[in-house]
């Protein structure tokens, strides 16, 4: 009796613990579930935020929606999991989420030692500083001896240590768990400046009681390419996320928008038709239906549309395209060839 129970328990344990790595591919799991599970931030204006009706929107959220549109044909079939910076990689590694799209910096260490793969860059960013106007500081070089509010577990924590060391200046880091707490610490005067990625600073700034009282300093002290992340070891899923993002960028380059995409399948040039699945086998090579990219563009839009809607001119953040402009227009966005 006892022995039997032991055998059952051990077998259960073996299957339970070996299950994670050897189960069906992520694509099959998502299709079976009928829903994509996507890890996002706990609330960051422009990137992933929830409105009063509980609807998520943002540049990072649009990556989730694009993948859901490509895989399931429905950009709304996404379950969002809000995660803090500290929780995000564990949630991905444990299989709780299928894709992590949470303003995550692509670094060598993360890419090679966490068992994850970065599927591209959807926002080129850099760490910067925000100070209160009445401090009278106009450059980061004047910040010697100041206190810094930082979010714990971010790459900014490392970037700022390097910067102050290199500039031979001192600072005191006050690290908080969430970006809201970081902002609260900054507003209370606990720190002289808040440091984070430039885009986050812009988002945090509009959340201040009086945004006009804070300025973002001109110095950009690090490279912070932000992008979606998947688990290592599932190449098919990796390809799907990578090319969903590329499809949005390529669509902008080709001038395909959510409005004209349907027509372009008939009237477009050969490149349009290849992208939108009227010709060629791009979709089936990914294990998706041939209209995968058409679904992305009609339901989510191309990269430019998504950018302007969430962080650009159509949003409170009012960020310039900057580096995030197409390569052909002075930026560094460049999707590999869609053929």
């Amino acid at each position, binding site marked *: 009796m*006892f*022995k039997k129970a*032991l055998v059952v*328990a*051990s077998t259960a*344990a*073996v299957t339970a*613990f*070996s299950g*994670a*790595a050897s189960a069906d591919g992520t694509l099959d799991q998502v299709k079976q579930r009928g829903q994509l599970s996507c890890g996002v931030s706990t609330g960051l204006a422009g990137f992933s935020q929830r409105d009063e009706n509980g609807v998520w929107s943002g540049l990072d959220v649009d990556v989730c929606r694009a993948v859901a549109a490509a895989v399931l044909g429905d950009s709304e079939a996404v379950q969002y999991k809000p995660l803090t*910076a*500290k929780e995000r*990689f*564990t949630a991905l*590694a444990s299989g709780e989420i299928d894709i992590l799209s949470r303003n995550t910096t692509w670094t060598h*260490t*993360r890419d*090679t*030692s*966490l*068992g994850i793969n970065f599927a591209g860059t959807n926002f080129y960013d850099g760490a910067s500083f925000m100070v209160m106007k009445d*401090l009278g500081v106009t450059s980061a070089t004047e*910040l*010697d*001896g*100041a*206190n810094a509010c930082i979010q*714990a*577990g*971010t790459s900014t*924590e*490392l970037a*700022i*240590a*390097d910067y102050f*060391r290199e500039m031979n200046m001192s*600072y*005191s*880091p*006050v*690290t*908080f*768990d969430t970006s809201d*707490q970081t902002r*609260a*610490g900054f507003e*209370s*005067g*606990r720190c*002289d400046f808040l440091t984070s990625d430039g885009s986050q600073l812009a988002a945090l700034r509009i959340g201040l009681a009086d945004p006009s009282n804070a300025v973002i300093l001109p110095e950009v002290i690090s490279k912070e390419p932000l992008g979606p992340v998947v*688990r*290592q*070891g599932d190449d098919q899923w990796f390809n799907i996320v990578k090319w969903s993002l590329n499809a949005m960028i390529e669509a902008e380059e080709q001038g395909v928008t959510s409005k004209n995409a349907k027509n372009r399948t008939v009237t477009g040039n050969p490149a349009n038709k290849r992208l939108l699945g009227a010709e060629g086998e791009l979709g089936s090579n990914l294990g998706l239906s041939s209209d995968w990219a058409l679904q992305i563009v009609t339901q989510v839009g191309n990269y430019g549309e998504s950018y302007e809607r969430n962080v650009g001119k159509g949003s409170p953040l009012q960020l310039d395209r900057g580096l995030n402009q197409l390569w052909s227009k002075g930026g560094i966005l460049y999707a590999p060839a869609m053929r």
Partner: protein
Amino acid sequence: MFKQKTLEETKAAQRRSTGQSSAASFYNNPSVRSLFYQVALIAGLLYFFGNIIGNTLANMEATGIKTGFDFLDSAAGYDVLMSLISFESQDTYLRVFVVGFLNTLLVSAIGIVFATMLGFLFGVMHFSKNLLVRKLAQVYVELFRNVPLLLQVFFWYFAVLASLPSARQSLSLGEAFFLNVRGLYMPKLVGGDLSEWVWVALGAAIVGVFFLRRWAKARQDATGQQFPVFYASLGMVIGAPLLVALLTGLPFTIEFPVLKGFNYFGGISVIPELMALAIALSVYTGAFIAEAVRAGVQAVPHGQTEAARSIGLREDKIMKLIIVPQAMRVIVPLLNSEYQSLVKNSTLAAAIGYPDLFNVFVGTALNQTGQAIETIFMTIIVYFVVNMVISFLMNRFNNAVALVSR
């Protein structure tokens, strides 16, 4: 035990008398059976956990997650707000671990001292004849025991300390002590030549107090005469170092905190994260200790008080000499678990950014290295060992105060 043995003997005798060989009923032998089940259970557990560990490692390797403790030797690359030993961003993760550990010990020690003081104060106040004092103790206990600790930590940090003025408009006491939103700044004594003799004098005075107490007690036991031990001790501890300091020509300079640029520099500074966490832990745990003290005092029979009164002891002496020593045997085991809770609760530091072990190691180090299993394992061991030590010390203390007659 006795009964079983005789039963077995009778059985064996029966077997012998009926000519049954003991080998035939080998599997019916209770001791063989119990041994078999115990071995089977241990083997099963080993197999079970061995499988879990083996599978975890295999899966982590298959998914490309780095394992092992090599990361401890590599540079951390980030700074820590407060450190009791020198630390800079190029130091190793192992040093981060030590820094965090010391910060955890610091806030726990402060918390334990103040929680005990608050607990005993309010616990004893509960038995006061004064209605106001009694009610005050009740309000304290009910208020702080019934509100979640995290909320209290936030209250002290974001509501109380964060509303202090900025560095440039600090509250100051005699231009020596400064309190602002960045923390508390105090002057520091910096010793010059010969200053070490002052510390020697202080040490000697403390040892002297110890002997004075023994002498006073022996004299009282022998003659019944009392000696003002408290005032004499106070005089020795303050007087001796002061005398030596004067004789050596006051070899001290006082370093005052000075506002330079953004912050005060120099002197001793206490960051608000430490203050908020220490206050919250002390006040919260103090409420529980007050209840433990109340329970302990109530456990002492009222006859003890009456007996003490009958021999003419004053009320304050009754509490100090008769009631509390007897109450300790109830209080100490309760104190043990309160102290352990306090150490574990100190991990709430993460919420307000106090750099304790949990915050700098499980928070940042885990995130920068991604080695969750190793960092969490190391942290669990630390809290486990610290609480084992507390338990050990408190058990020793408990033996000392336990009822001896039995």
